[in-house]
């Protein structure tokens, strides 16, 4: 069991930021993102240590799949996410001055609002490609699409978010 804990601990450290950000950008609430993110890892841990007969072939894909399902359940219960301002959001760089901090939060607000208003697949490809640095092939596997279909989807997602930002 100790081996499993160590291994999963490393998986947690590697993916926690990505999964949290993925969920946050969809639900736009820190509390909800924390709850759903912790639920994602808990469910994955239970499978990982062998509580169910399922095997995890690709841990990254599994985590995203669980996260997406939980977000879908969340939407069902709470309607689509409300856009909330970024005042209470943890940012990486604590040392920037107040003016820069305000500018950064304004940018974050604008972009996250634009992405939150997109449909699910567009959100996913943008987050995976430009924030999580996944390859087109990896994104295709996550979505169950071919590479060319994924490129087309990405192109459409970029166009959609550009339209939102220019409105």
């Amino acid at each position, binding site marked *: 069991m100790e081996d*499993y804990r*160590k291994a999963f601990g490393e998986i947690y*450290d590697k993916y926690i930021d990505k999964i949290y950000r993925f969920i946050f950008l969809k639900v736009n609430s820190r509390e909800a993102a924390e709850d759903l*993110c912790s639920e994602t890892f808990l469910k994955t*841990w239970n499978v990982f240590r062998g509580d169910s007969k399922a*095997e995890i072939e690709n841990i990254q894909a599994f985590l995203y799949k669980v996260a997406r399902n939980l977000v879908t359940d969340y939407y069902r219960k709470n309607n689509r996410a409300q856009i909330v301002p970024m005042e209470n959001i*943890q940012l990486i760089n604590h040392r920037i001055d107040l003016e820069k901090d305000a500018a950064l939060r304004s940018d*974050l607000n604008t972009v996250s609002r634009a992405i939150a208003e997109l449909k699910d697949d567009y959100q996913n490809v943008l987050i995976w490609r430009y924030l999580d640095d996944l390859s087109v092939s990896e994104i295709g596997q996550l979505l169950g699409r071919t590479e060319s279909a994924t490129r087309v989807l990405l192109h459409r997602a970029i166009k959609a978010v550009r339209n939102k930002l220019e409105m």
Partner: protein
Amino acid sequence: MFNDSGLIKKIKVLNQIKPFPDWVVLTKNRILEQTEEPENVLGVVPNGDWDVVPNIWARLWSSFPLKPVFAFLILLVILTGAFGFAQSSLPGDFLYPVKRAAEKSQAVFISDEGLPRYNLEIANKRLEEATEMSQRIAERPKRLLAYPGELQKRDSIISEFQANISQAAKHLVKADAEKSGPDTMTIKEIVEQTKKIEENKQKAEKLGVIVGGTDDLNNVLSIIVQREIENLEKTILIEDQQAMLEEIKQDYEQGDYAKVLEEILLLSYPQP
């Protein structure tokens, strides 16, 4: 109007979003503490004779007058046990630092003559550890395999193995330069350790571990073997011994220096 690269730059601003560090740590601990209910391995009824064991202990402790001595003995048993268990520990295990500390403390008492043997012993230990780690990884279910840090630890162990081989070779060269070669006892010990290294190397390589060569050591052994052969050639040998010497020379050409040294010892000091 945003071009694509400007737009992507805007999107990447969202990389700034991250969870609170305290929450990350608390959540990790909470998740990893999830375990099944512990088995009732004692098979003891919770409110029956469960008090018997603690009661016996309490009576023993209170009636025993020499508590400090008893406490010292317990500590000694624990430490001995810890050292004992530590010998089979691997990198990443709780007692592994104890094992390494014990090795370092041994090194203080090693004489110059004993250094080649000591280095080869330590090299063997590192190789055994790398093999054991690979065995552990290979026996796990597919979903587990090796976690990233584990492979790095194994690679570090292999590097230490190679460093110890080089050290052993260096000390042998030094011994060779200072005297006319290592003494019989040292040769016997080197043969033993070198054979062990070869066996462990084969085990490790079967599990996919890239151990690397032991060229430094082989080069030094080659020099020692050559000198021993030259010494034997100057000696008067009977017919059987001559035949053995010819075989030894052939084996020397094959490069199996540990085997050759063993044969030289048999030739020089035949068993009754």
